[in-house]
């Protein structure tokens, strides 16, 4: 077995938490049950990984199997990576039948014709997700297995989720191969990024609980805004206001869990407006400013701002439009005409 393959397998196993190693090796399926029985999972990880490499040696593992193990690891720990969303467009309206073998063949052929040294691995999952792992090399060097790119493609949708490797120069090539293989004619990057792959899917596939405008002239009866207020001696003076905020929040955010995003970024390209007498950049050039909101769970924290009394309800549409517009990167330009801000339409 190749030295580099052995080392790669060893390092991949080391990444896995000790309690998960057995399960992951079983999922991998490359080592037999009998072989797995011989492994002692109660020793330190260093030793476990050495033993795994030994067994792989016996089975003559090559880079293909090693890559498969890596995909399995990254599928389970997908939230460690940063994912970007891309949208593909078709020229015609024909719904072509999707053939997975054809897709794989075309993808590999397109990539390999441009770059000989690549490792391409596919894995399909039950939710119709096709995971693709690509390790990139150069015309003179073998692929770097430690910096691969991952692509998740749901064949029934025009969306692709990419976790690019640090080697960003390969991105155009990757995109090209994707559109050729999937019979689309165009691909563009959406301004939507997050660590939570499932939340990105929820947003673009519209799987989160959306608010459907129903005509509701009065707040619904019997809704308990403050469940812990069982003592009738406590009188809430601002109950009406609290209920108004709660209702507005429900309308904007819906009642289900929000998709998980870690940040929203607003790039301002507006003019600084000051008292003309102050003569500070007054309407001379755009005031360059970047506003970034970070949170372990941005949308849930936005949802709790008004009820917590930290912001007025309704919140700014710039914040609340994030899931509907499927973007968390915005460019804000100058007022034009009647509308407050214009977004960049990509």
């Amino acid at each position: 077995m190749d030295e580099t393959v052995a080392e790669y397998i060893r390092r991949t196993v080391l990444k896995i938490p000790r309690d998960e190693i057995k399960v992951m090796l079983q999922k991998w399926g490359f080592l037999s049950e009998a072989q797995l029985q011989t492994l002692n999972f109660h020793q330190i990880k260093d030793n476990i990984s050495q033993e795994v490499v030994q067994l792989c040696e016996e089975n003559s593992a090559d880079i293909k199997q090693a890559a498969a193990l890596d995909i399995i690891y990254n599928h389970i720990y997908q939230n460690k990576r940063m994912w970007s969303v891309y949208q593909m467009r078709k020229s015609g309206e024909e719904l072509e039948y999707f053939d997975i073998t054809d897709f794989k063949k075309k993808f590999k052929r397109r990539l390999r014709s441009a770059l000989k040294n690549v490792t391409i691995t596919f894995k399909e999952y039950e939710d119709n997700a096709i995971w693709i792992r690509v390790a990139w090399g150069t015309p003179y060097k073998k692929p770097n297995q430690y910096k691969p790119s991952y692509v998740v493609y749901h064949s029934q949708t025009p969306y692709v989720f990419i976790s690019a490797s640090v080697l960003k120069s390969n991105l155009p090539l990757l995109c090209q191969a994707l559109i050729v293989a999937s019979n689309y004619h165009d691909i563009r990057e959406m301004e939507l990024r997050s660590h939570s792959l499932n939340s990105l899917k929820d947003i673009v596939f519209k799987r989160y609980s959306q608010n459907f405008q129903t005509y509701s002239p009065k707040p619904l009866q019997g809704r308990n805004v403050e469940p812990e207020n069982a003592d009738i001696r406590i009188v809430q003076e601002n109950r009406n206001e609290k209920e108004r905020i709660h209702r507005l929040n429900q309308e904007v955010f819906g009642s289900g869990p929000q998709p998980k995003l870690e940040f929203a970024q607003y790039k301002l390209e507006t003019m600084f407006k000051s008292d003309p007498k102050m003569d500070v950049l007054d309407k001379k050039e755009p005031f360059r400013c970047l506003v970034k909101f970070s949170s372990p769970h941005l949308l849930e924290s936005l949802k709790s701002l008004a009820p917590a009394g930290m912001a007025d309800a309704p919140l700014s549409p710039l914040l609340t439009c994030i899931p509907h517009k499927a973007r968390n990167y915005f460019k804000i330009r100058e007022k034009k005409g009647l509308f407050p801000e214009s977004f960049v339409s990509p």
Partner: protein
Amino acid sequence: HLATSLPLPSERDHLRPRIDLIVFMIDIKSKYSLKNVETSLAHVDASFFLGKVCFLVTGVGRVNACSIEMNAVCKLGEAYCSPVLFCELELEGIRAATAQRLVRMLQICAGHIPGVSALSFVSLMRNSDDD
């Protein structure tokens, strides 16, 4: 009665009993909380400041999360001739003790304790340096 700010919503005026004591709660972790109290103070009738107002500063257990200067709070108490109490709501013992103190003050303000009136609070607050 709990309210988030003053003035109180007028639609509930007819449901409200006489107000004997106003406790302004200031969360030491929130500058906004202090600001809110300062703006609400402007809506309080002057007669309340004869012992029927007190400031309650909460969250004092978390020293490293202070957003408000102690000076500012004490000055506020002096400016409005009202006592400032400190407590930590997250500790049950202190919570109970503070509640008992407030109830005692309320009894006095409501006139339930013969011989002691709310005006006593004002005189108790005089700095010994003044003499």
